[in-house]
C-alpha cells in the first residue's frame, strides 16, 4: 500500500488504512533515531520549506530534524503576524517559494484552512503543521503512535482529551484519528470551551472531569491558553486548575496503567500537576520522539515516486 495523495491536510479525510500505513512506517523509522549516525540518504536533493505564520519552535524543529535525517534540504520561512500586515499575500509567498523549487511545504498558520488554500495554489505537496483551530494532523499521528506503542493497540481504548476543546486543533485531529482507529474518544472541558455541535462528532462529551476520567486508558491533556481568560471563557487560572487540572488524585479513577500525554508546551501546575507530568504514567517525551518518526514517515511517503508531488 502507498499513500496516494499530494498533501496531508487533516486526519478527518484520511482512512484508517492510510493512518495505519503512516504509523507502521513511522515505527520502522524509530530505529534510525537510535543510531550513532542519524542520517539516511533517501530524500537527498529534495527541498522542503517550513513556512510558519505562527511561532512553534517544537513543531518546526521536529519537521526540520525529520527532513535532515532523511537528507532533504530545509528552508525555514517565518512570517510574523498575518500575511496581510506584511504586505505580501500568502498566495504570492507560496508562489515565490515554489518557483525556487520547493518540493514540499510544511505550513503552520493561525488561519484555519490556510494549508488547504496553499494546496490549491501550489503544485508541490503541503503538510499541515497546524492551522488555526482546525487540525494538527502530525500531532494526532504522533499521539496515536505513542498510544499504540505503549498499549499495543488503539482499537477499543478509552481516550480522554481534556481542556480547551474549542480552540484546539490537537483535539480535532485526535478525535478524528482515534475514532477512525476504533478508540472511544471522550472530551472534557468547561462548557465555555466546548464548541457548539461537538456532540454531533464521534465523541462523548463531559464537563465533569472526575466523571470523564473514570476508567480511561489514556488522558491527553491540552494546554490552556492563558489569554482565553480575557474573553471570558473561564474565570481564573485557580478555578480552571481546580476543576480541570489533571492531578494524581484524579488519575486514580482512570485505569491503573493509564497513559498521560500532553502536546506541549505544558503549563505545569495549571492543566497538569508536576507530579503527573513527571510521573510514571507520563509519556510526554515519547511523544516528542515519535513526532520526529511520524514526520519522517510522512515526508518519505509524500515525496516517494508513487505519491510523487509532480505526478499527483
Amino acid at each position, binding site marked *: 500500500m502507498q499513500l496516494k495523495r499530494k498533501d496531508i491536510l487533516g486526519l*478527518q479525510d484520511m482512512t484508517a488504512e492510510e493512518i495505519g500505513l503512516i504509523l507502521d512506517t513511522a515505527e520502522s523509522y524509530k530505529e534510525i533515531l537510535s543510531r550513532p549516525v542519524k542520517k539516511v540518504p533517501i530524500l537527498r536533493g529534495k527541498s522542503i520549506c517550513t513556512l510558519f505564520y505562527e511561532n512553534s519552535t517544537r513543531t518546526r524543529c521536529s519537521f526540520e530534524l525529520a527532513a535532515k535525517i532523511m537528507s532533504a534540504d530545509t528552508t525555514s520561512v517565518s512570517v510574523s503576524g*498575518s*500575511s*496581510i500586515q506584511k504586505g505580501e*499575500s*500568502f*498566495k504570492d509567498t507560496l508562489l515565490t517559494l515554489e518557483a525556487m523549487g520547493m518540493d514540499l511545504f510544511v505550513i503552520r*498558520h*493561525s*488561519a*484555519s*484552512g*490556510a494549508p*488547504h*488554500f496553499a494546496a490549491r495554489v501550489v503544485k508541490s505537496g503541503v503538510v499541515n503543521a497546524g*492551522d*488555526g*483551530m*482546525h*487540525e494538527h494532523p502530525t500531532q494526532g499521528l504522533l499521539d496515536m503512535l505513542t498510544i499504540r506503542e505503549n498499549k499495543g493497540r488503539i482499537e477499543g481504548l478509552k481516550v480522554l482529551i481534556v481542556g480547551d476543546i*474549542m480552540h484546539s*486543533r490537537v483535539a*480535532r485531529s485526535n478525535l478524528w484519528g482515534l475514532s477512525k482507529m476504533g478508540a472511544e474518544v471522550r472530551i472534557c472541558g468547561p462548557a465555555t470551551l466546548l*464548541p*457548539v*455541535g*461537538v456532540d*454531533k*462528532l464521534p465523541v462523548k462529551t463531559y464537563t465533569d472531569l472526575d466523571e470523564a476520567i473514570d476508567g480511561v486508558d489514556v488522558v491527553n491533556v491540552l494546554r490552556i491558553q492563558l489569554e482565553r481568560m480575557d*474573553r471570558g471563557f473561564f474565570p481564573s487560572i485557580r478555578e480552571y486548575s481546580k476543576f480541570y487540572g489533571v492531578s494524581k488524585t484524579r488519575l486514580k479513577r482512570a485505569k491503573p496503567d493509564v497513559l498521560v500525554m500532553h502536546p506541549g508546551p505544558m503549563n505545569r501546575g495549571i492543566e497538569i500537576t508536576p507530579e503527573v507530568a513527571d510521573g510514571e504514567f507520563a509519556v510526554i517525551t515519547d511523544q516528542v520522539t515519535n513526532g520526529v518518526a511520524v514526520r519522517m514517515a510522512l515526508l518519505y511517503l509524500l515525496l516517494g515516486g508513487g505519491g510523487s508531488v509532480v505526478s499527483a
Partner: protein
Amino acid sequence: MLLVLRGGRVIDPSRGVDEVTDVIIRNGHIQYIGPFSPPTNGSSLLVNRGQKEVPNSFPSQETTNIKFYDCAGLVITPGFIDMHVHLREPGFEHKETIATGTEAAAAGGFTTIVATPNTKPAVDNRAVVEYVLERGRAALVNVLTTGAATKCNEGAEMAEIGDMVEAGAVAISDDAFPLQSADLMRRVMEYAKMFNIPVLAHCEDKSMTRDAVMNEGVTCTVLGLRPWPRQAEEIMIWRNILLADLTGCALHVQHVTTAGGVEAIKWAKSRGIRVTCETCPQYFSLTDDALTSFDTNAKCNPPLRTQADVDAIKAGLADGTIDVIATDHAPHAREDKEVEMQEAAFGMVGLETALSLVITNLVKSGVLSIGEAIEKMTAAPARVLGLSSGALIEGGSADITVIDPEANVTIRSSEFKSLGRNTPFEGFELAGRVVATIVAGEVVSGELRCGELMMEKK
C-alpha cells in the same frame, strides 16, 4: 417608434395580472397592455383590448415604424428592483463601479437598484447622495441610494438624514456597520420616521461575532473557524422590532437568514408593528456546508446557515413573512478573496445569479408560484421603499424584464458583467434566464427575437 412585446405571458403581481398578451411601448412608457392588431387598411391603428376596440392615439408620423419583439414562451414582468446592492463607488472602484454594477444589474434583469451607503466616503451627506445619483443617471438602470444612519458609519453621531432624504435618499441604513447602541438606533428611527422613510437594518450583535467567519454549529466546529452564532442576528432583530414598536418607524430587516429571525418578524407582523424584511438567494440556496472546502466565496455576512434555516426561510417566503428578495450583491476583488478564510472579505456577487436561483430553488421546487416570486422582486421592494416602479402600468416608465423560466443556464463567473467574480455558485446548473432587460423602453441587456413591420405613410 413603437415597441411591441408580442405574445408573452405578462405577469404583474402588483395588479394580479397573469395573461398571455402584448405590451406596447412608446416613448419609453408603456402605452397599452393588451392584444395588439396591426392596421390592415393603413388608415388607422387599432389596439384590441379585450372586447372593445380602442382607437389608437398615435400621431401618424410615429406609426411609420413598429418594432415587434416575439415573446412567445417568455414571461414579461415589471423590471426587478434590488434594494440591497453594494456598488462600491465611491472609494472601492477596484471592486465595482456604478457603471459595472449597473451593467450587472441589467444582465440580471434589475431595472432599479438601491445602493448601500458603506462607501468611502460613506453616503452620509447630501453631496455623496447627489454624487451617486448623478453617476447613476448615466448608468444602464435606475440607481437609487440609501443614506448612512450615522456619520462615516461610525455608529456615533446621527447623519444628516433629512438633508439626504431631500437630496433623494430613499431609506436610511446601517448595513455593514450595525448600530450597536440601542439608544442611537431608537433616535435614528424616531428621526427617520419624520421623513417617512424606512430604516434598513443590518442585524448583528457585534459582541457575539468578534473575528467570526461562519455559522456556529457542527460544520464550524469541524473546520475550526470562528463561530457566528445565529443569536447574534436574532437578538438584534428582536431589539430592532421593539424599537420599531416604540418609535412607530418602518423597520426593514435586511438579509434574514435564520429560522428564529423569521419567527421574530412573524410575531412582529402579527402584532401590527411596522416591519418588513428581505432575504437573499444564497440563504435559501446554500447551507454552511458550502464552506467545507474553505471556499472563501461562500463567506458572507450574515453567514450561510443550516438546512433547517434554509427550510424556515423558504417557509417564510411562502407565508409572506419575508417580503422581499434582495441580493446583497457584494463584489470583491480577487485579492480580497484569494486569501486565508479568516482574512477574506465577506460577501458574494448576486445580481447575475438571483433570477436563476429564485426560479430553481423557489419556483421549480414549488415554494412560490412564479407570480409570488416576481412580486418579491418587484412590487414588494417598491412598496417597502415607496417607489412607483415595480409594476406594469399604462403610462408608467417601460421598465420591463423578459425572462425564460424554462431555460437552463450554467453559472460562469467569467461571463459576469460585474467586476466581482466572487460567487459560490460557479458551475451550478440552474433553470431560468433573463432574456432581456428594458429600461425606459430601451433594451439595455439581452436580446429579443425581433420582426419589423414597415407601415405605409398616410
